[in-house]
């Protein structure tokens, strides 16, 4: 005879177990209190107050709002965005009028300058004619080359991250690592890389390698290797064991098994993670540029510091369109590979 007592030694009763108990409820209350305190310390209420004011102002309930004013001021200065590039010919080295850049032309403009007359000691307005080289899409083209540079930075960083993470993933996959000590060490390295924020790594790498793409690429590579290393390793560990066992049974070597029975199975997932990293790297490549890591971010920082918001507008627009466009391409690739 089986015991009539249930698992905990209490007689089973004809009732459905409650899905949650009072402990869950108390836990929830504690979490809410902690979150409330944190929100208060960080001043999160301003999110609601200022957004509320802005909405009220926009529907006419209120004269003006701080947020609305700020947004209005910035957009006012950003638009119209700057597309063309104008440069006084006197500031162009080796200027040759016979060989102008394509689609450009020269304009003569009157420039008024306040000059201190040394005789009268008074400010006088002097007008003189200056010749200016106008490239109608010059600035946009420059921003586009910077955008291409940013994408290049992201692609190189992704490639380097793949190359670095493959051996790390092999060593930190429990079922393929040569030794558990190596497993622990590799997992440690991977977590360390992943925990390094790109922006801060870039700050230090700029000191070591100077301003420019190299520092940006390396900063993105280190974080990316940590990211891919972990997810590749987890995929290898979780891969279907049956085909691996089939090859093991006929005496195939570890590397052959990894190549033939693991890689093909995890490839869709590898690809999805790598595409995610590339996507993230393009956005982050723009960010590390802010601290001197090359690309469009460096240009953005420079213009921002000079209060040239019309050019900042151009940069942000190009960045936005690029990220959206690449996202479309990436999702198409992903769909193709997963089928």
């Amino acid at each position, binding site marked *: 005879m089986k015991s009539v007592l249930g698992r905990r030694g209490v007689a089973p009763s004809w009732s459905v177990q409650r899905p949650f108990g009072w402990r869950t409820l108390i836990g929830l209350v504690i979490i809410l209190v902690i979150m409330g305190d944190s929100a208060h310390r960080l001043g999160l209420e301003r999110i609601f107050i200022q957004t509320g004011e802005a909405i009220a102002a926009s529907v006419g309930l209120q004269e003006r709002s701080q947020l609305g004013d700020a947004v209005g001021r910035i957009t006012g200065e950003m638009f119209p965005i700057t597309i063309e590039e104008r440069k006084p010919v006197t500031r162009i080295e080796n200027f040759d009028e016979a060989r102008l850049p394509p689609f450009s032309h020269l304009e003569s403009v009157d420039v008024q300058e306040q000059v201190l007359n040394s005789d009268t000691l008074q400010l006088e307005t002097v007008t003189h004619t200056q010749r200016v080289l106008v490239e109608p899409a010059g600035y946009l083209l420059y921003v586009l080359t910077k955008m291409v540079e940013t994408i290049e930075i992201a692609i190189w960083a992704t490639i380097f991250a793949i190359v670095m993470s493959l051996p790390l993933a092999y060593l930190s996959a429990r079922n393929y690592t040569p030794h558990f000590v190596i497993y622990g060490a590799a997992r440690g390295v991977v977590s360390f890389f992943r925990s390094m924020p790109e922006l801060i790594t870039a700050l230090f790498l700029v000191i070591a390698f100077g301003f420019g793409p190299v520092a940006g690429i390396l900063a993105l590579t280190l974080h990316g290797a940590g990211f891919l290393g972990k997810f590749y390793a987890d995929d290898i560990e979780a891969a279907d064991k049956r085909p691996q066992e089939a090859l093991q049974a006929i005496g*195939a070597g570890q590397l052959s098994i990894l*190549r033939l029975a693991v890689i*093909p199975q995890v490839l869709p997932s590898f690809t999805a993670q790598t595409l995610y990293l590339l996507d993230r790297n393009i956005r982050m490549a723009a960010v590390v540029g802010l601290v001197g890591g090359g690309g469009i971010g460096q240009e953005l920082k420079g213009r921002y510091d000079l209060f040239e918001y019309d050019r900042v507008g151009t940069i942000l627009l190009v960045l936005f369109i690029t990220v959206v466009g690449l996202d479309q391409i990436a999702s198409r690739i992903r769909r193709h590979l997963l089928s």
Partner: protein
Amino acid sequence: MRDFNSCEDRLAIDGPALSFTGVSKAFGDGHQALADVSFDVAPGEFCVVLGASGSGKTTLLRMVNGLVDVSGGEIAVTGERLSTANMARVRRKIAMIHQQFNLIERLSVAQNVMAGTLAQQTVWRAMIKLYPRSVQNKALELIKRVGLGADHVNRRAARLSGGQQQRVAIARALMCDPAVILADEPVASLDPKIAHDVLGLIREAARERGAAVLCSLHQPDLARQYGDRIVALHQGVVVFNGPPSALSGDVLHQIYHMSAPAA
């Protein structure tokens, strides 16, 4: 240690393809899965291991190619006694067919079949998945032999039906010219009609090549129909070893009813 590359090895050609002598298995948790199992399988013979679920069939088969360690007794393949030292070499003479087919689903049929020769290939060949012409031709021949068409050759294994996948697994098993083919419930996931086709194919293909088959099954009627000989396991002990015609109702009763027959 004895030297198996000498005359004993050659003498073994007339001996059994596979022999178990007093083999036992106790798992780490102390569970005795097999006890004192002894029997031989001759070259070209189709030997069925019959038993209920949990009787030790899988354990017995997996000990032959070292997927499970032997606790006691010895196993010999074409006269060569298994040990950890010669496992890599012995494995080349043994092929395995699995209940779940165990194909690499995202690789093509041809790639799966050619992978059957991996133990003989250099690592770089595996890396680039490019096999010698002779291997390619042999794979094509075997794909035809197991009843698949040219349209299947480069199709992903996952696209095939269960029966077709098991045919691919059979072709993969035949690639290394095995002396012994282990088949662990090869038809347990297949429809009855397909099950007959697949078992028939394994038996014929093995017989053509003089390979011994050790095939586990849990259905007595299939065992009777395809086995040249039946070894019945009950709770890790051999309770019958003989031709299908000698398999009595008493034995079947003992295998499939948990209670021991009253003494």
